[in-house]
């Protein structure tokens, strides 16, 4: 079957049109066929586009096929990104940055004055969790993330992250959009703007957050001045029905076969309309978009349906909400979605000013096993090499506690940890360090801008050249900042 036929026949046989004619015959009758040649190259069975355009191709193509795959500036190491966003700010000294000195000072003031954070903190607080070494590299990780740590030799832990302020909103904006206050496109938007997506039947940038929005809501995945096609598609994985996951994905009125018949009529009329005019990419693109949309209805439902996974796989991930999200994420990555951002939950789950021990334990319990299974799964399928997985919050937490209790920690932007895996980063590697107490990054500091520059580099972009002209100047994710951290790259 040729591509054209394939396209016309679609995965659904649905030969309901007319009593005596197949759709093919019908279309031939209306003189269609030739017009589709323009689209043939665009589509194949999987929704993957045959040829990628260069990243700086002209704007017309960008608008008619905004998500067509594009080639970056140089050969990329990573092609897809998964960002596990632990919103609220997980404590680095309780997870990936052990500080034994805190045990020594537990309940006592630190020898140096505490850095100013959002709230006043007092005495040092030791980590209530046990750390041990994992893997050949001997990475120290707390008991909270033992399944994740089973992949120690694949992790690249940055212990010297730092951001600008200790408040949630601007820090979320900085981590996602590269600026704390001003309106800038999110990293996922920049990446899909730069690379398009591999699967035209699914959104290129998917955001999963169970039970509602994180704070500052959709601004976290906005496209700002980039075209709207690059904004993240928000999905609430608490829902099981596909129509609650993606707007307008399902027609409540007519069955699929009948809709195919209706679409055939529309396309036949569109084809006559087009044939009477000169070749016009706008018209062709719109015709194609309807075919893609029609397929998206089944493809998307399938991609987001974690129950289609074999029981053994589902068991490996576990039964938590993050487990389901990560299964869906793997299905999306497999299908060529460019950027998936997975949030811990609505609001700010990791923001444990008090009762940190119980809350961190419960959050990590939900996340750790699925992360371990997810990394294994990606590895088994050969996807980890080209998929950059990133874990972290908008900042970390103070080594000191908010008095009078010794039970929780304040926000800390001076130093925190994130880890990366796959996508061309070093394996079993620790980069940078915080001071003796974990208050501030001191060695090989990595600012959020540097992280952004590095991610773009892994994806094949010079971060100073992935730009968009707006309001008189060229904007970029890293604004006027950012240095690629070569030490993170394998």
């Amino acid at each position: 079957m040729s591509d054209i036929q394939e396209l016309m026949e679609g995965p659904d046989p649905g030969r309901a049109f007319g009593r005596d004619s197949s759709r093919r015959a019908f279309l031939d009758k209306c003189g269609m066929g030739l017009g589709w040649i323009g689209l043939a190259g665009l589509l194949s069975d999987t929704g993957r586009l045959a040829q990628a355009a260069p990243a700086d191709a002209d704007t017309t193509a960008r608008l008619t096929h905004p998500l067509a795959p594009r080639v970056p500036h140089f050969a990329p190491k990573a092609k897809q990104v998964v960002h596990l966003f632990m919103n609220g700010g997980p404590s680095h000294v309780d997870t990936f940055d052990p500080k034994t000195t805190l045990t020594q000072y537990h309940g006592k003031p630190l020898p140096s004055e505490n850095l100013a954070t959002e709230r006043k903190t007092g005495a040092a607080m030791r980590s209530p969790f046990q750390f041990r070494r994992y893997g050949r590299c001997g990475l120290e990780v707390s008991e909270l993330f033992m399944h994740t740590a089973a992949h120690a030799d694949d992790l690249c832990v940055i212990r010297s992250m730092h951001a600008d302020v200790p408040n949630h909103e601007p820090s979320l904006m900085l981590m996602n959009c590269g600026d704390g206050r001003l309106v800038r496109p999110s990293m996922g938007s920049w990446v899909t703007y730069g690379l398009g997506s591999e699967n035209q039947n699914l959104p290129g940038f998917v955001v999963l957050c169970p039970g509602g929005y994180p704070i500052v809501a959709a601004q976290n995945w906005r496209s700002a001045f980039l075209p709207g096609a690059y904004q993240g598609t928000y999905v609430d994985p608490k829902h099981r029905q596909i129509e609650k996951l993606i707007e307008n994905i399902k027609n409540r009125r007519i069955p699929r076969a009948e809709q195919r018949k209706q679409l055939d009529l529309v396309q036949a009329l569109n084809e006559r309309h087009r044939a009477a005019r000169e070749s016009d990419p706008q018209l062709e693109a719109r015709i194609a978009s309807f075919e893609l949309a029609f397929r998206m209805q089944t493809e998307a439902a399938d991609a987001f349906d974690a129950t289609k996974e074999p029981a053994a796989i589902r068991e490996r991930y576990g039964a938590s909400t993050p487990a389901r999200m990560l299964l869906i994420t793997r299905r999306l990555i497999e299908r060529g979605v460019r950027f998936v951002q997975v949030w811990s939950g609505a609001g700010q789950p990791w923001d444990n000013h008090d009762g940190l021990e119980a809350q961190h334990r419960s959050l990590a319990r939900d996340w750790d096993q699925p992360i371990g299974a997810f990394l294994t799964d990606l590895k088994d399928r050969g996807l980890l090499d080209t998929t950059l997985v990133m874990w972290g919050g908008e900042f970390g937490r103070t080594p000191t506690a908010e008095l009078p209790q010794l039970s929780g920690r304040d926000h800390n932007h001076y130093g925190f940890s994130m880890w990366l895996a796959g996508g061309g980063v070093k394996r079993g590697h620790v980069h940078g360090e915080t001071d003796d107490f974990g208050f501030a990054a001191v060695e090989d500091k990595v600012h959020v801008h540097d992280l952004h520059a590095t991610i773009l580099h892994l994806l094949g972009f010079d971060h100073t050249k992935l730009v968009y002209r707006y309001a008189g100047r060229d904007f970029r994710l890293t604004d006027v900042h950012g240095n690629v951290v070569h030490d993170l790259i394998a």
Partner: protein
Amino acid sequence: MRRRHLRETPQARVALVLACIFVPSVRAEDDATFFETRVRPLLVDRCQSCHGPKKQEGGVRLDSRDALLRGGDTGPVVAPGNPDESPLIEAILRQGPVVMPPKEALSDKETTVLVDWVRRGAPWPESRPDASAADASNRAHWSFTPVRREQPPEVENRGWARTPIDRFIQARLDAAGLAPAREADKRTLARRLSFDLIGLPPEPETIESFLADPRPDAYERLVDRLLASPHYGERWGRHWLDLARYSDTKGYVFLQDPEYPWAFTYRDYVIEAFNADLAYDQFLKEQIAADQLVASGKADQSALRGLGFLTVGSRYLNNPHDIIDDRIDVATRGLMGLTVGCARCHDHKYDPISTRDYYALYGVFASTVEPDVPPLYAAMPDTPESRHHAAELAVRETALRTYVDGKIAKLLDTLKRRFGDYLLRAHRARGRPRTDDFMQIVDPEELNPALVARLRGALERAKRNRDPLFAPWHALAQIPEDRFADEAATLVRQPAESHAPPWNTLLAQELAANPPKTLGELASCYGRVFVRADAIWWDYTTRAKLNGNEAPVYPDASLGELALFFHAPAGAFDLHANAIDDIALVPDRASQDELKKLRDKLREWRDKGPGAPPRAMSVVDKPRPVEPRVFRRGSPGQPGDRVPRRFVEVLGGTDTAPFRTGSGRLELALAIADPANPLTSRVIVNRIWMHHFGKGLVDTPSDLGTRGSPPSHPELLDWLAAEFLNKGQGLKWLHRMIACSSVYRQESKPSELVRERDAENRLLSHANRRRLEFEAMRDAVLATSGTLEPRVGGPSFVITAATASESSRRTLYARIDRQELPVLYRTFDFPDPQSSSPSRDQTTVPPQALFWLNHPLLAAAARGVISSVDVSRHAGISDRVEAIYRRVLLRPPESAELELSLQFLGEEPDGDAFELLAHSLLMTNEFIMID
């Protein structure tokens, strides 16, 4: 050119270099040669990639002597003649906190060259920066020169051109050897005109009567009828609202209510202004300074609504600098196509716009505030309810004011009482990470972090500015603890003016009388003096008032310095500005909650209390305007030189006069709306042109600067601009002129030759095919279904939760939440309402098709089509099909289409089948494309 040397030990290196410093330099070569052969290549090679025209790390430029002396964020980098006081030298010696170049150190030879150069006095033969030449040529950029009065060119074939516009177009086509396309058929024209002018499809009857109208001016009559429609203002008002980044909400504002309950009054003002064909200059002036025009009788009270242009912007967590930036941007980029916002942190890299220009305008908007209770724009009916509303409003307003004033008074009182503590805390904070940018939560009895941060900033500024008030502090505070008593005693014995910088005499006296033995005692001493100073301020101010003077006169400078410390208008401790929204000032949760409660009580009554009238989102001038300073690198913590409030120099000339009246907002409005302003008229005629043709004559409609696209038809642009001014600045005149031209009436079909030679259609040899924007698309669906509600104006409705009658209103009345725009909006390329938008993207993505395929609006519309009289009155299948085509596509079906449709319907179609047919037609390309 990079020279590498063997590394000696660091110690040896320093010794060597220091030896150089203390050896008098031998002037073997003259300064110019020395600079050009040794210094300049070194600066270019090793420094300027980060400190030059392209980048200014740390605010430092090393490409002119002026720049060196002006320095960066932390002051001058070179003290000519004095290497050991030059931060540049300290940095290259790698001895201090700043180490330069960051990666590879300069060789000793290179270091010696720079040390020697600084000691020579840092000679720089041509002391002007290299950018100046470019600057001059930028000022001659086409859009900054006056609008020329062009004559329409003569053309050979006179049969085509109807208007002067056409002659400009034809001349260019002739020159390119291209012919214009044929005139589109009347049906196409009627549809095009209708969508262009009122954003709605023509009624089928309108089309039929237009087709049947034999009069030669039938077309012009249709144009006039559409321009007279109240829907014209809705269509073109919405274009304006893109520019005005209109939204019904503030964006993310933390604990605050994000609503702008009266944003719609601005939207309605815009619609009315377009419908009334308000002269464009008046329209601009009202949107910037209606309050002042109303006060002088030059505008109607209802024009106050126009000030929403300034105030409907995003609130950026109430950061005042960002709010001002947004207003500068919308006024300059939106109205003049000038990207002044680029000069917030550094001089514009391409256009002749300096940071001085930016902060001159900053001063205008920083001197502009919004009243807590905005004014009414129409007379309030005198009813018991309205009287009660006003009385209760006053009560709640007073309660809030009293609370805030009380808080501020208490804050300042504590600050003065515990000034010593604050001073020590601010002093200890130096060198530690800054906290100005974030909110801290502390108990009420603790030192207020916001005040500590302000005092810390004040101390840093005082040091930089060599302020006599804190000169003793800075001189004494650096003495090590163990020697403090002795060394302080020696210093305080010296006369005040003998210090460098000199000390404030009153402080010096106090210190001499009670020499401090510790830093703490020094702080207490400051505390004592400042408390006295405050009493003196009160005393002098009261006396001045009694004598009818505006400002007190202090007998000597020292007393004035002291007295003004807490009371300088717009100074560090002027806490009243924005206090109601500045939650950081009350850092304890209890007070924050109380403040929020009072604020909500006021706002709720103001907005929703019984009898609450709508109000204009107006602004007023502050009683005392702000004297702006340039913020280095855009950072308010680093104020630089003062600038007067004035217009931008590229338009006002290098001797641009400072604004004199209040904030200067009216003068700014006049300068923008001045017919002599070369940008304003070009920008608006280009925007109007763009919405008629799909593309502007200038393709970057909000950037006419040097990086914008040049106009495709510069003479035509100027002719239009000049005629527009000449004809009284009526936009309807402009629409008529454009819509009646031959170039506008062409069909959208390019010839083969054109597709080869001018694929982008810059020469306008045919009409551009366009797609309906989101609003026009949804409105067209509603209009086609016969359910569109024609009422103009009124409060916004929530599109995702609309009642049946609301959801049939035109789309521009749907509430726009900039924080959370419904997904559908962005899917259909509605511009991000965070900032002014010049034009819309037109992407094609599957989620759009999903909307057409599956959204209930479409099914409902199809039902509307089927149940409309002109369809339902037909009994025969073919007749019904034809009626559906006429209704949706505004034409009868061709025979093949009829056949296809009948085949689709099958033998005995029911109502559902007809609905699916109507739905299908609504989805076609023909329905949403304008030929």
